[in-house]
Every structure is written in C-alpha cells, then in structure tokens.
C-alpha cells in the first residue's frame, strides 16, 4: 500500500449501485412536481457517489487505516491534551434516551438530560471556583468569544464605553487575539520576561482606562505557572479591567488551585481536552464558560436552573448577551465529560493533574540533556524545548517532527509558542505509562544523535509513512478544494 494514492469515494462510484434502504412508500405516490414551480425543481442530481454498503465500509476503513489517533499511539501534542478517551463515555452518549431526544421536547419529558447538564454545571463550578457556568459554547474559541462579549456588556452597562482593548501575552494561543477581534476589541500584546512569565512592568505599561480585559492561560503555553498571578489580577482590576482565564491548560491544576481563587472573572474550559471529549479529528468540542457573580447577569441565554425538583431553561434574562448557539450547547460532548468526571471524582481529578505534571517534568529532565530547555524551572503539564542546537546542524524542528513519524509517534506541537525559537511543545498527559514515556524519550535522544551523525536521515524524513512530505505551497497557490470528476 505504501506510496500509492487511495481512491476517492467518487472514484469508486458505479451507476446504479446503492447502499441505502429507504422505508417503504406507504402513503399515496403523490406527484410532487405538480405542486412546485418548475424553476425550483432541481434539474441535475448532485454528484454523490453510488456505492454498495461494502464499498462504503472498505473505503472508510481504508481511510481510518491512513489516520492516527490516541488509540493508535502516543500523541504528545502540546496544548491539546491528547489523553485517552474512555470507552464508557462513548457507550453512554449512544444511549437512546440521550442521543435520540429533541431540543424542543417538553422539559417534563427530558428531565434526565437536564439533570445531567445541571449536575455537570455544578461540578464545573466547583472545579473552577466560579460563581456560575454556562454549557452553551461549542468549543474553546467560542467560549472565549462568549466570555469577551459578556465582559464587553459588563463595561457597557457601567457606561464604560472606552474599554476597547484586550491584552494577550505574546505566548497566547492564536484564538485569544482572534476572539478579541471578533468580539469588537483591539488585541494588544504584553511581553514575557526572561523567566517565560508575563512581564509585570510591561503589563503595568499597557493597562489603562482602555483595558477591557487581560486574557491569560495559567499555566501558560510554556507550561509554566504564572506565579505572580495575584499581582497581575491586582494590576488589571485596579485599572478597571477584567481577568479572563483560557482553560486550555486546566489539566495541570485540578484540585490544586482554581481560576476563581486566582481572581479570574471569566473562564472557558475545553471539555474535549481536560475532560476527555474526544477530539474527533478536529471536533466537535465543547467550551463552557464560568463567570464571577458580577458577570453572571450577562450569561448567554438560556440558563439552566432548578426550581424545586424541576429543571428549567430560563430565558428571562434582560442583561444577557443573547444566544451564542442554537439549542443548549454540545450536549453529546457535555455528556461524555460528565461521565468522565463521575468516573474520577475529586480524588481522581487531582491525581490526573498530579500525574500530568509528574510525567511532563520527568520527560523534560530526560530531554534537556540533548535539547535546549529555555526555561529551567519545574513545568506543569507540558514543556517547551527549543531545537536550536539541532538547527545549527541543519536540522529543523519540522524535520525532527517528521522523523518522529517514522518511529510511529505523533509529534509534539511545533513552532508554538511563538516566543521560543524552533519550539517543540510536549504534553504527555497522565494516561500514558512510564514505558511509553521512556520509549518516546529514547527516540528523541536517538533523533538528536541522528541529527549529529546523519542529518540527511532526519532532514528527509519521513521515510516510512504512506505519503511523504506534501507540497503545501502549490496547495495554497492553486487550491483544489473539491473533486471535479474524472
């Protein structure tokens, strides 16, 4: 199979094949065309494939064999928390009483579903230390935008119309400045200091009357805890701004500390990361937001409440920022997260963070022998190496990543964060065994050797994958975004 292209489903199509078993037409065979104006009747059928059921199964099974997930092997992709996705979660999500219920059913007929959501909300409030939680946002970036809109509404309600700027660290995820822009703010940058933490002097310089919020990930994207968080909160709050917590890295601190206690006014969580989503090849995710009491009136509509023993959705929210998504959020993902939290409990979640951090530190100490470690202190759940020693030998971080593919690993996140040259960002997660970590460490050390003694081997990697490096330049210059037929 190596180095061959794999037919598209359209290329497997043969006129007259089908795989669908339509129900019987048990009502009169009305001539629908008669009721429709001619111009609205489709003239040519869309070119969907015509394939048999086995064709479909072979096709997609073949595609799955050309893909790599956490179940395939180690996936130390920094900032993405690629932990094991428990199987019970999938079974629960497929129960008829959860998967086949309609969002507009009478609330009385879906109290079980609403109880689950309410219980999850309550758990997330406790884990984050926030006053209230909304499960509406569909993903992390969606949660960021939702919370920023709330912060905007809060300032506007106070007549504070000049707060147009959102501060993000230079190490922030790209979604932070993008969400700020989409919410109508201007994103400005605060620098990191030589320890990899937010530079308080620079923060003092950039805050002011125009500050709407500071967006912060803690631990930050270097995997380092922002030790001066209380001073930062003080600086931002004194200036009248709000503090926003990007929950991408919550896996590092559960049961140890909480964003609410650190002084954050709003947080978003990535349930597909910390709470075993799964990632689905890019989604669906879920990005609940938690807020302080002050921001609570601005939560998106509706909010889920409990009145006596009944769960209800409350739409009577005059200060709400409105709807951010149809229906009630990504219920199916929230359900998986709930199942996970119930499996682990408080004791388990604390252990999750303990091992996530232990694993990262262990790997970091082993790997710093051959790769540059720009920030030497203990890390949290992830750490960032620099490939600059290898770069001097002509081997780029991209090459190291590609060489890892040959050894059967998914590479770490590369070239992020932006403030580390030739960055390699490693997040092992807590669900990996020591043998797995050791195997990866040994491989990384071998690649360091190869870079010295046989750099071409690394530069020309991957050698063992089904395709080699792709021509991405042509892909972007002359985009082919769909199949056009033979």
């Amino acid at each position, binding site marked *: 199979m190596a180095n061959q292209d794999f037919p598209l489903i359209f290329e497997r199509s043969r006129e007259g094949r089908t795989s669908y078993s339509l*129900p019987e037409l*048990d009502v*009169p065979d*009305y001539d629908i065309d008669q009721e429709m104006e001619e111009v*609205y009747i*489709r003239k040519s059928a*869309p070119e*969907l*494939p*015509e394939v048999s059921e086995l064709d479909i199964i072979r096709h*997609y*099974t073949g595609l799955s064999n050309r*893909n790599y*997930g*956490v179940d*395939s092997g180690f996936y130390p992709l920094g900032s993405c928390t690629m932990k094991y996705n428990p199987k019970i979660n999938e079974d629960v999500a497929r129960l*008829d009483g959860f998967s086949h219920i309609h969002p507009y*059913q*009478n609330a009385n*007929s879906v109290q*079980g*579903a609403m109880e689950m959501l309410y219980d999850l909300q309550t*758990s997330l409030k*406790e884990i984050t230390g926030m006053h209230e939680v909304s499960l509406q946002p569909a*993903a992390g*970036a969606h949660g960021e935008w939702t919370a920023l*809109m709330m912060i905007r509404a809060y300032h506007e309600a106070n007549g504070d119309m000049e707060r147009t700027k959102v501060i993000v660290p230079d190490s922030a995820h790209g979604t932070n*400045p993008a969400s700020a822009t989409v*919410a109508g703010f201007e994103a400005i940058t605060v620098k990191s200091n030589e320890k990899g933490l937010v530079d308080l002097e620079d923060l003092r310089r950039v805050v002011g009357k125009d500050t709407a919020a500071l967006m912060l990930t803690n631990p930050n994207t270097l995997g380092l805890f922002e030790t001066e968080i*209380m001073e930062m909160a003080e600086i931002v709050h004194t200036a009248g701004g709000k503090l926003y917590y990007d929950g991408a890295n919550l896996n590092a601190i*559960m049961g140890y500390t909480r964003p609410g206690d650190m002084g954050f006014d709003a947080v978003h969580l990535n349930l597909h990361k910390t709470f075993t989503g799964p990632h689905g*090849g890019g989604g*669906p995710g*879920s990005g609940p937001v938690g807020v302080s009491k002050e921001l609570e009136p601005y939560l998106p*509509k509706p909010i889920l409440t409990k009145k006596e023993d009944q769960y209800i959705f409350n739409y009577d929210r005059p200060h709400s*920022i409105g*709807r951010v*998504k*149809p229906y*009630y959020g990504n219920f199916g993902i929230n359900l998986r997260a709930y199942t996970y*939290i119930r499996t*682990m*409990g*408080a*004791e*388990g979640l604390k252990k999750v963070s303990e091992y996530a951090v*232990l*694993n990262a*530190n262990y790997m970091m100490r*082993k790997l710093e022998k051959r790769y540059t470690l720009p920030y030497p*202190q*203990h890390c949290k759940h992830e750490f960032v190496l620099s490939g600059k020693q290898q770069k001097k030998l002509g081997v780029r971080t991209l090459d190291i990543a590609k060489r890892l593919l040959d050894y059967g690993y998914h590479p770490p996140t590369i070239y992020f964060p932006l403030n580390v040259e030739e960055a390699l960002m490693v997040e092992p997660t807590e669900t990996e065994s*020591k043998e797995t970590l050791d195997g990866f460490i040994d491989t990384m050390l071998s690649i360091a050797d190869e870079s010295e003694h046989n750099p071409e081997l690394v530069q020309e990697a991957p050698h063992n994958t*089904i*395709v*080699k490096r*792709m*021509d991405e330049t042509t*892909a972007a210059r002359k985009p082919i*975004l769909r199949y056009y037929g033979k």
Partner: protein
Amino acid sequence: MEFRYLPMTEIDKQEMLDTIGIRSTDELFSDIPSQLRMQQELNLKKPANEADLMKELSKMAGRNANLKEYSSFLGAGVYDHFIPSVVDHIISRSEFYTAYTPYQPEISQGELQAIFEFQTMISELTGMAVANSSMYDGGTALAEAVNLSAAQTKKKKILVSKAVHPESRAVIESYAKGPNLEIVEIDFENGVTDLAQLEKELDENIASVVLQYPNFFGQIEPLEKVKELISTQKKTMFIVSSNPLALGYLTPPGDFGADIVVGDTQVFGIPAQYGGPHCGYFATTEKLMRKVPGRLVGQTVDEDGVRGFVLTLQAREQHIRRDKATSNICSNQALNALASSVAMSSIGKHGLRKMAVMNMQKTRYAKELLKKAKIPVVNNGAYFNEIVIKLDKSVSEVNTGLLEKKIIGGYDLEQAYPELQGHMLIAVTEIRTKEEIETFVKELGDING
C-alpha cells in the same frame, strides 16, 4: 483508590521523582502561591465504578422520552431521519474519533481525504464552488456568513427574513454585536418572506440579505425573485441557509446566484442528541475562497508525486493571522462531518432525490388528513417536510395530551412569534409510517376537540 485511566505504579512514580530530583510531587506545585493552593478536596460526587455508573446513567437516560420509542412530529431545525448502521460503525473507528485536527498530513491522510470528500459533497448539494470542512452548527455558520458579508462589502446593515430559524436569528444578533452591525428583520406574508418589504429596505447600504430555503415554516422561498431584487444592488451579498436534504429535490441556491450557502448536515447521519453536536456547513463562491472561516482541505502531491491532501489557505486562520484572522474558529465538527459523508455516500446520487421526495409525500399525506379532520393548514405555497397548522387549544396543552399517547407533537410557534398563537409547526420525515401519521392526526383532532 485505583483509577483505570492512570497507569503509573508506585515504583514508576519513585523512579520518576528520583530522575527529577525531588521527593514528592507536591514540590512540582510549590510555585503556586500558598494562599491559592486548595486546602480541601473538591466537592464532587465520589468516583463511580464502571458498572454502577453505567447503570445510573442508563436510568437517567431512561427518564427522557426518546424518539425511538415515541412517534415524533417535531422538527423546527432538528429532524428525525433514518441513520444507516454503517454511519456509527465508521465514526466509532478510533483512528478517526481519537485523532486531533490533521496537522501532520503524512499520518492524517484518512481524515484529510474524508474532509475533502465532505467538501465536494457540500459543493455538489449547494451548487457552490467551495465548501469548508464544517462549522459548529447551522446557526453559528449563518452568523459567520453575516459577519463575512459585512467585512467583505464594508457595509454594516443586514436584512434578515423573519422566516429564518428564530434561534439562528438570535445567534446572528449576538455575533453582529462584535462588528456593530445593524440587523433589520423582514416580515413574512403567507409563510414566505415579504418581497415588497424587502424591496423597500434594500439599498446601497445593505451588506447582505439572509433567507432560509426551505424556510422555518417549511415553505419554499422564491429565490429567483429575491435574486432579481438583490441584483439591483451591486455589492449586496445573497446568503441562503438550506436544509441540505431538501437540496436533493430543490434547485440549489448556487443556481440562483447565492454568494454564501450555509446550513446543518444533522439530517445526514447525526442524531438529534438534544440539540448538539450537529454539523454546520459553509459554502461560497470561488471569489470568497480566501475569506472563508474555518479549516479547508486541499488536494496536492507529495515529494514522489503521489496524490494527497493537506490543510490549506491557513493564512486566513487564527493560529497564523491571530487578531487579523477571518474568524476565531479553531475546531470544526470533523467527526460529525464524517458521519454525514458516510450517510450521504450511503444515500447516493439518486437515493437523495427519492428520500427528499418521500419526505414531501409523507408531509403531503399528513396535510390531506389534517384538512379532512378540519384542522386548518395555514400557508398555501409549496413546502418541504414541514407545515403549519392552527389549533383551537394552546399548543402546549395539545402536546401534553399527545405525549400521553407516546407522540411528540410539533413546535409551538408562539414561542418565537407571539402573533402565531395556537400555531404548531409539524415535521413529517420519511421514517413516519402511514399508520403513525393517521394516529397522530386522529389524536390531535381528539385533543383539539
């Protein structure tokens, strides 16, 4: 207590602590200021073992009236269609569902090709040149389309038909606050957008006109006439939200000059699951290709000339452009897009039209029976799988009665349209049998009195 997702043994742990040169893991958390460190355990329910938890959650699920056991005539944007068995078998393959976004194309060709195929199917259905890898859902896709139109035309006013899904309109309103857009709603007349009002409001300040086809009431909007109106304004963009199943029968919006077509592929292989996750799609003209939000997959070749696929045109996206990105969206609904691709492949080129027609025929049958039962069916234009009826009693009262008969009744239109008191929106899909439709109409008539 032992946790099955945590594999480290005490021996492992000790070796690792030694390597790091510390005595206990607490030292790794000592940089957290002491006043911030939690003194007590989180207040959560105790850890549950697998068997007990499954039992408890099954019971919780059992307290919900589900569409497998009840006969449902509820739609309003979320539909109960047959899901072929192949769908769940494919999306349960963990190489798909436990993968991340395909950043490493050499080991992600499966996902990338599946998305490329999805993009092709959406292009085909909508009659558009380009489709992206998916969006959160139809509602947010529509809101993103509105914001794109404003950015592209540098205009701030949007005309949105009131016959667009009320929750999508609400999401548009929320998204529009970021760039400070003005949303003007256009009323409806006999269940379709009031073209006279649309014509009156349309001028050179309009960034886009937004319609749904078929609309929220199931009616087929006259896109041809709307296009004629819009074409009087050179810059104004035409945005259409479409149920993609209906496009198996209806002329696609692309043929009427739509600039952006969005919608939700929940109708193809995705269960209702209480409203999400579903799967938005986003299709545009070639001209807008570099303005599209979200991921795009493109075809290319590797060093040996072998065909393959990559994420492309990433210069639009947040991880490259940061504050200058076209959208903040970072994820897509890849797994649900995969489910829809499998369902669409299963239905196939000719099956799709048959399925769409069957939805219309079954709805037509319900309409005939309702008329016979003297329950007024309002709106007299062409429709897809939804119709509106007028009841004598309140919709909630009728629905409560139906639920006792194991029937889930239609959507109460008064919730979103105060003027439509006593109006119920009914959806009839291909999986409702003749007998179910007959029972529904009979019970409905009895309760309505």
